[in-house]
């Protein structure tokens, strides 16, 4: 079926085709440049249009689900309060969960950071003589860089979520936490599968592509030595791990091999089974606009003859818990609703954020992993607030984005030119005399008013927009001429009594 696979650099048969935009460049020790990557995404109009419309459609589906639930806002309040409560008692719930899980015959491990998490998983695999691992999608394992670490240690890993599998085969990070390959068009997937799975070159029929993936993945599932899942929720009361998927791939990953490893962040706790009623009702409605995922799976105890291990991962979460302005970001249930509604995310693609978490939630939590590297991300937002309104656990996302900007300024993480421009603007706007002189004529105002624009020699305002036209005289001058010093101006007409 497959002749010579194309290497990425090679010319493709249909040369005029729009290539899939790649994500933010690796900044090394510098800052991720979201704006630069976003510009390249916008320069690919077919990808941009599909991405924007696909995610907006999901937002519309989410709205329809919301309107079908009269108690929607009450559910959000409850979800928010349950998470607030749990996080403010996280130590005791973690201990309760650990005790319950152990009583169920589950092994519990604790990982301070990504490296320890990866080492624990590798240790478990080696202890069991496991060389092949099938797994369902987990943003935590992405965050920890687990795949690369295990592959380097000789483990063969197969992602079983279709979108995540596509991204794995393309050696690219997921661009969306729920739909990892949402930035790809069918022909991009066709190219990846032709290159890696040996599907027919140029065949981009979606049924064919999905079926090819099923047929090539299933033997790997059947023969895998170990299975891994993440966890959407873990329940302190029962020790259960709850995983939500649409493909049933977590159930296959957990139930087929003899070893089931769960990787889960410490913030995913809920106190009671009954709390799940609130969260499961909100999760998929917020994420995809469907009432529930096709599969909602509760793993409490290993099946007879099998082992279940849970790795509880901190990786910065306990530190974030102590950040007064940002700890509520730990309430996040990873539904992706904030990304779907974000007008910037939809037009820049998830890869432009340079880390596992993109969109509004990424702007808020990515800097907790590396303040310098992600220091420009809080500026990749218009602060419009739609994210906050769709968040099922009521995280004040846009306010946290705003708060991060001040943190970046205080920590000297603003680019020098920006900081200088702001200092100049602040001095100008604090002085009526300087300000008046600066905007005395509209032409002058254009040079000095959007002061922030002037540090940029490329004239960022005027590249895609016309400047506002001069108005002859300022309002200030008009007032001086028409109103100042006069008794009371004759009003043009009075409110009828």
């Amino acid at each position, binding site marked *: 079926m497959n002749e010579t696979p194309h290497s990425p650099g090679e010319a493709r048969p249909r040369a005029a085709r729009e290539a899939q935009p790649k994500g933010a460049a690796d900044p090394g020790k510098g800052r991720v440049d979201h704006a630069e990557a976003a510009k390249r995404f916008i320069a690919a109009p077919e990808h941009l249009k*599909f991405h924007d419309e696909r995610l907006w*459609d999901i937002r519309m589906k989410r709205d329809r689900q919301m309107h079908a639930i009269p108690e929607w806002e009450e559910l959000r309040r*409850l979800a928010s*309060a349950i998470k*607030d*409560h749990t*996080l*403010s008692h*996280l*130590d005791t719930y*973690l*201990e309760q969960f650990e005790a319950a899980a152990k009583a*169920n015959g589950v092994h519990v491990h604790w990982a301070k950071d990504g490296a*320890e998490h990866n080492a624990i998983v590798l240790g478990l695999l080696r202890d069991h003589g496991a060389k092949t691992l099938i797994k369902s999608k987990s943003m935590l394992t992405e965050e920890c860089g687990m795949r690369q670490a295990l592959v380097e240690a000789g483990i063969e890993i197969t992602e079983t*979520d*279709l*979108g995540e599998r*596509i991204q794995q085969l393309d050696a690219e990070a997921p661009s969306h936490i729920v739909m*990892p390959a949402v930035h*790809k*068009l*069918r022909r991009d997937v066709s190219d990846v599968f032709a290159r890696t799975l040996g599907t027919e070159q140029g065949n981009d029929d979606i*049924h064919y*592509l*999905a*079926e090819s993936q*099923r047929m090539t993945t*299933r033997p790997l*599932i*059947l023969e895998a030595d170990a299975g891994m899942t993440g966890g959407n929720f873990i329940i302190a009361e029962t020790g259960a791990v709850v995983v939500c998927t*649409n*493909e*049933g791939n977590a159930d*296959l990953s957990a*139930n*087929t091999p003899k070893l089931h490893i769960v990787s889960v962040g*410490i913030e995913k706790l809920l106190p009671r*089974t*009954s*709390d*799940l*009623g*609130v969260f499961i*009702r909100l999760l998929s409605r917020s994420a995809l606009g*469907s*009432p*529930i*995922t*096709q599969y*909602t*799976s*509760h793993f*409490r*105890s*290993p*099946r007879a003859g099998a082992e279940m291990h849970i790795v*509880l991962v901190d990786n910065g979460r*306990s*530190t974030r*818990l102590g950040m007064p302005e940002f700890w509520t970001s730990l309430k996040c249930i990873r539904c992706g609703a904030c990304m779907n509604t974000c007008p910037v995310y939809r037009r820049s693609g998830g890869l432009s954020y340079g880390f596992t978490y993109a969109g509004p939630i990424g702007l808020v939590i990515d800097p907790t992993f590396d303040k310098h590297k992600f220091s420009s991300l809080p500026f990749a937002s218009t602060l419009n607030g739609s994210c906050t309104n769709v968040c099922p656990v009521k995280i004040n996302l846009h306010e946290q984005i705003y708060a991060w900007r001040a943190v970046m300024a205080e920590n000297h993480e603003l680019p020098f030119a920006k900081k200088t421009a702001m200092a100049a603007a602040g001095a100008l706007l604090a002085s009526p005399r300087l300000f008046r002189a600066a905007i005395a004529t509209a032409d002058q105002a254009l040079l000095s008013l959007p002061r922030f624009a002037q540090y940029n020699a490329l004239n960022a305002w005027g590249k895609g927009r016309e400047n506002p036209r001069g108005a002859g005289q300022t309002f200030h001058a008009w007032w001086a001429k028409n109103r100042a010093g006069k008794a009371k101006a004759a009003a043009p007409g009075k409110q009828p009594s």
Partner: protein
Amino acid sequence: MSSRDTILNAVRANRPAPVDLPDVPLFGEGRDDDLLGRFFTAFKLMGGTVLELGDGDPVAPLRARLGSAGVVVSRVPEIAGTRDLDLTLPPSSLADVDIAIVRAAFGVAETGSIALSERELGVNTLAYLAQHLIVLLDPADIVINLHHAYRRPEFARSRYLVFHTGPSATADIEGVLIHGAQGVRSLSILPLPRE
């Protein structure tokens, strides 16, 4: 210090001011009529198939459907399969099953979900490796919504409990819905009361 203690100490040091745990209402008032109808509406929206009961012999249409199938594993007394489920074989041995038939522990009207545990499945992979899954559901076992569902005793006693809501599905390529992404290609429900 162990990582466990390091993490717990950090959490203890950083935890925010305590917030009360709210009670969660059941939100079921006025929604307890026509549970089967509500269930079917939701179930079909999620891609599920509803099977009709036959006159006289309620499982006759189902039996007819199985006629041409290859390997059929039945976990219900109402209808026979072609192969008994051998609980001692590895879970991967079910890869050649065409149709699996099980009975749901209960159903959820709000979402059109059915609940299955190891008790119903025998081998958990049966519900995923089979090409098609047929589920008998007693209309008396349907609860109003997920709040009611999560009060069910099965959660405390099952090792594994799963809600299925339609068949395996994906829309990961251009948003086009595909059934049978990794698990079953179809999920059908026969609303048959328990014997």
